[in-house]
């Protein structure tokens, strides 16, 4: 049995997340993946924005920074530029990273700065009461979509791939072992890593969409989950509405701060 206590600020528990919330499953998966890295706790820097996901940093016994809505990635960028030796992990959500923080998300991916972004995608703004987010599926209900949601959704994996992230993966809270594995792979990547984890918000999303228990919501996630390998052999119509999981990109490209030091610092100091 894995002992989480070493990594948690136990006096900050119980957490603020609702009973049965998937965020706890992600937090535990992240802890197991970080443990596998064998990092000293002092060397880990956890940065978050605002929202349910972003409360994760307060429970973790690392260096931790709870920033502004949408801005975790640029705060983390400054930290990485100032102290590249820190292992910087960003905890964020679908609203935090792809609505208000969308610009920062794509530009950090483009630079390939060594940040590992663990994105809790619960398809809704949970903390503020269930307003629709960039990943709320079309036709579903939200507090600001009382007649049904009309916006097309972001595919966060496609967004990260298009922006140039060097590690891109998706998993779900219905498959914690796979989640742990892909987070671990992301942590190993020296560059910008995006791990989207689809989570359940039965309180703010499920209740408006005939899935009021955690079980119903996790079943909803599980029933739509398809591995990347399997999805490749499916027709486009069949893939519609599915959560395709797995690693979508895992490649090596020069890391931003290392490149800066190699190409800018050395030149400026008369080296090369």
């Amino acid at each position, binding site marked *: 049995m894995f002992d989480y206590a070493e990594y948690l600020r136990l006096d*900050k528990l119980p957490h603020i997340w609702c009973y049965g919330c998937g965020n706890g499953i992600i937090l535990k998966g992240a802890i197991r993946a970080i443990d596998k890295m064998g990092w000293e*706790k*002092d*060397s880990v*820097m956890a*940065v978050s924005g605002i929202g349910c996901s972003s409360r994760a*940093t*307060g429970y973790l*016994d*690392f*260096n*931790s*920074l*709870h*920033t*502004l809505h949408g*801005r975790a*990635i*640029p*705060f*983390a*960028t*400054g*930290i*990485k*530029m*100032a*102290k590249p*030796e*820190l292992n910087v992990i960003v905890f964020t959500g679908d609203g935090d990273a792809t609505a208000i923080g969308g*610009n*920062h998300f794509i*530009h950090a991916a483009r630079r390939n700065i060594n940040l590992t972004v663990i994105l809790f995608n619960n398809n809704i703004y949970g903390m503020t009461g269930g307003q629709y987010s960039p990943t709320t599926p079309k036709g579903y209900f939200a507090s600001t979509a009382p007649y049904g949601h009309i916006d097309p959704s972001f595919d966060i994996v496609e967004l990260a791939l298009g922006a140039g992230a060097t590690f891109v993966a998706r998993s779900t809270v219905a498959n914690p072992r796979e989640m742990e594995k892909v987070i671990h792979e992301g942590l190993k990547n020296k560059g910008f890593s995006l791990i989207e984890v689809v989570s359940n918000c039965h309180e703010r999303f499920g209740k408006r969409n005939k899935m009021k228990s955690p079980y119903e919501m996790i079943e909803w996630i599980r029933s739509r989950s398809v591995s990347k390998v399997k999805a490749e052999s499916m027709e486009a119509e069949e893939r519609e509405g599915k959560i395709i999981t797995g690693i979508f990109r895992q490649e090596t490209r020069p890391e931003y*701060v290392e490149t*800066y030091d190699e190409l*800018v*610092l050395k*030149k*400026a*100091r008369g080296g090369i």
Partner: protein
Amino acid sequence: MGEIKFLQGNEACALGAMRAGLRFFGGYPITPSSEIAEQCARLLPCSGGRFIQMEDEIASIASIIGASLAGSKSMTATSGPGFSLMQEALGYGIMAEIPFVVVNVMRGGPSTGHPTGPSQGDIMQARWGTHGDHPVIALYPESVPETYYEIIRAFNLAERFRQPVIFLMDEILGKMNESVEIKDDISVFEREKIQSRDGRYRPYAMKDDIPLTANYGEGLRFHVTGLFHDETGFPDVSGENIQKNMDRMYRKIENNIEELQKWEESGADNPEILLVSAGTQARSAKMACQELNSRGISAAVFRPVTVWPFPEKRLSALAARSKKVLVVEMNKGQLADECRKFISDEKLIPVNQLNSEMISPDEIIRQVEGVL
């Protein structure tokens, strides 16, 4: 005597920042401040620091807050519209008590306004631009040499009080060239190294109302948030804690007002006519004052160098002895409004101009003659 350099205002700002120990600059281009970023891009890597051009001003200020928390003296530079985008994070810096410097080279606004023209339209944005109640430190030099030394003071104050410092310049100051004597003896304030690991580290334990916060990655794991927090750094939104910390954050400034404030007085003692003016505009006011003095008119200039906290006590005493106080500024009367708190309407005369030009000495003299 130190080396003499012929510098542009923006260049002096960057060089002064380097002298103060700048290690990180995150910025986004905007006229008329861009040379500050350009100079930092050139200078920082020469001394092992790092520069990044971020995707916008919000990201720029966020990056410098992160870098400061990780132990690097940090700065960004912008102009009015970019400064507006930075306001939320500026509030974060004040709340979480993080030292950094934000330079705002003021141009004509609102909106895109007149990017290559000067104004002093952000005096109040500096004071009240961010949300909520908060204390503010803002400096505003008048010349290129003063820019060099005041930006060093800005860093020193930021580090000493663990508070963001707003450094106001204007388009004239940013773009003009003057000689600067680079002195050897300059005092630079270094952040105290916090190493204690006895018991649980409390990043917001206070010493004289100023938190003793360590840098990230130096062996003390702690939490920082923009929520109201207690000494441990974790959220505490009890009414008692909020009131206590707001009172303390204001007290941090109010109890050190003499250390923070700085102003210049020139012209006649006990003047009948007192001219109040800041930044480059004050140089025009001083020229007008000299001319008035040579004509036998008792006039003086009061120039706040620290704009916030406003040097109210001294100005109030000077104003009490004067017949008329003319507040000369390239805006609609932002400093004049502040002066109205302690100078009567009969005595106070705002002199304002919004045509993207400095108010000339002749115009100031004309205004003075009109009230004599």
